[in-house]
């Protein structure tokens, strides 16, 4: 698991997922989000998770979860086979984030991506003042042992979404306490004070 247990993005993802949707959670960890969505939204859920411990616990919850790697195993899913594909706090840990995002957009009719924001002011200040790679509450790892190998800022992600030809239908930024930032705030502000971002993408323009 690359992030702490309590996930502040779950409640917002839950709001976005339609009742009864067919959902694939990529990097589903121990299946907490899938279990939540099955319970509250009656989704037809599947999960993919790299860590064996995570998979075992998810299967023990009665979830359909397989051990596998987002970088290699997404190719086996057919086009448009899920209503919603979720990539929650996982993109930054993949080898090839662009390829992964393209695969998600191929498989899902909607793609929900949540990412930690490396452009958050705490991270910026850490690097600026201390001259060290940032270690914050949301990003607790040192540079040498972090599973997060491809960091980006919210602005960077918006750029990537454009590059792979996706439309951002909705977006939100959360502060470090998990509160949603005001919708009318400009992106520059989100990119500065957001601890993480949530994006709903649709394939094509």
């Amino acid at each position: 698991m690359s992030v702490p247990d309590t996930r502040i993005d779950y409640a917002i993802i839950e709001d976005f997922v339609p009742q009864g949707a067919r959902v694939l959670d990529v990097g589903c960890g121990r299946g907490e989000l899938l279990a939540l969505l099955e319970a509250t939204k009656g989704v037809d859920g599947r999960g993919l998770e790299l860590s064996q411990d995570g998979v075992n616990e998810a299967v023990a919850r009665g979830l359909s979860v397989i051990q596998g790697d987002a970088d290699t195993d997404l190719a086996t899913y057919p086009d448009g086979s899920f209503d919603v594909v979720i990539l929650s706090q996982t993109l930054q840990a993949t080898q090839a984030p662009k390829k992964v995002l393209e695969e998600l957009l191929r498989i899902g009719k909607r793609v929900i991506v949540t990412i930690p924001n490396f452009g958050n002011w705490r991270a910026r200040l850490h690097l600026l003042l201390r001259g060290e790679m940032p270690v914050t509450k949301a990003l607790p790892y040192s540079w040498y042992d972090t599973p997060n190998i491809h960091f980006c800022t919210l602005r960077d992600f918006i750029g990537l979404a454009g590059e792979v030809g996706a439309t951002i239908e909705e977006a939100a930024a959360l502060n470090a306490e998990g509160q949603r930032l005001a919708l009318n705030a400009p992106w520059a502000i989100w990119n500065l004070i957001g601890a993480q971002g949530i994006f709903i993408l649709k394939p094509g323009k």
Partner: protein
Amino acid sequence: MPATSNSVPTTSPADTIFEVSEPFVLASGESLERCQIAYTTHGTLNADKSNAILICHALTGDQYVLGTHPVTGKDGWWETIAGPGKPLDTDRYFLICANVLGGCMGSTGPGSPNPSTGDIYGLSFPLVTIADMVDVQAKLLDHLGIERLLAVVGGSMGGMQVLQWASRYPQRVVSAIPIATAAKHSSQNIAFHEVGRQAVMADPDWHGGRYAGLNTRPTKGLAVARMGAHITYMSDDALHNKFGRSLQNRSDISFGFDADFQIESYLRHQGMTFVDRFDANSYLYVTRAMDYFDIAADHDDILARAFEGTSTRFCVISFPSDWLFPTSESRAIVHALNATTAKVSFVEIESDRGHDAFLLEEPELFATVRAFLTSIAEREGLA
């Protein structure tokens, strides 16, 4: 019932025999005029017959999942995972296990009499396939009045039957647990089987398969076949940890060909005890059935098509130290199931014990099977 030197093991009073009512047509096109399978059950079938689990045994397994084996006097082969309160819980589920077609523990096989001549079949017995084994099991379930199986579970060749069940009778299989198996038998595995068969055939007591009428049995050849096969069931680490280069009851090497090493002594013992409970011709037929197994072959070589539109829930399990049925084989099954958007769980259980791990005390395996089956049972409304 102890086996004598010139007879093959037969059925025991613990079995029930099911006889197919009409000639049974095989995948090869040949048919068996008379066809029966011996099976055991454990637990109680509930009123709406919704708690049945079919256990499929491996190459040299049999229907004695639980209880004392009538030939060896040993415990059933899956006592580790099945029984009261165990993951395959006989307090909750009704377990069924049948000796495979072609086997030698009461089911029709090369050691059975040919009804048209009265002689033992030997090599005149038609080749059977994994699909044939499954088709007879389906007829057994018809006979028992069981329309749907809560689960079909098995390891190795048992896992092949599980996959065949799910592909051939998807509407009858609520969930499938294929363990340490593959959707096709690999070239390497066919090669190992061929070595075993040649060992049997090289034994002068084999007599072209007609040993039953000559009061002999090719025990030496079958024992060698078993010794070779047994190596493939264990990992290098398991062999190293269990035996290393330890010597057997001696302080020094003998400069001869005695079983100096413990591993040699162990394999010889495995070979010798195996021949008491297994028929050499059955070994030829059942290994051949595994070799012929390639479930995609009937579906334009596209494995996913074997499971198209399935509503069966799968729990695929492998072990990283299993080099006979490596995790890559299980992953191929999972990928095919993904392609059909089937509901599939896949767990690789950490174990250094090789292919045989599915038969051993593996708590993580038990936890996975228990949790998966419990969730299936809840969904099916079983308390």
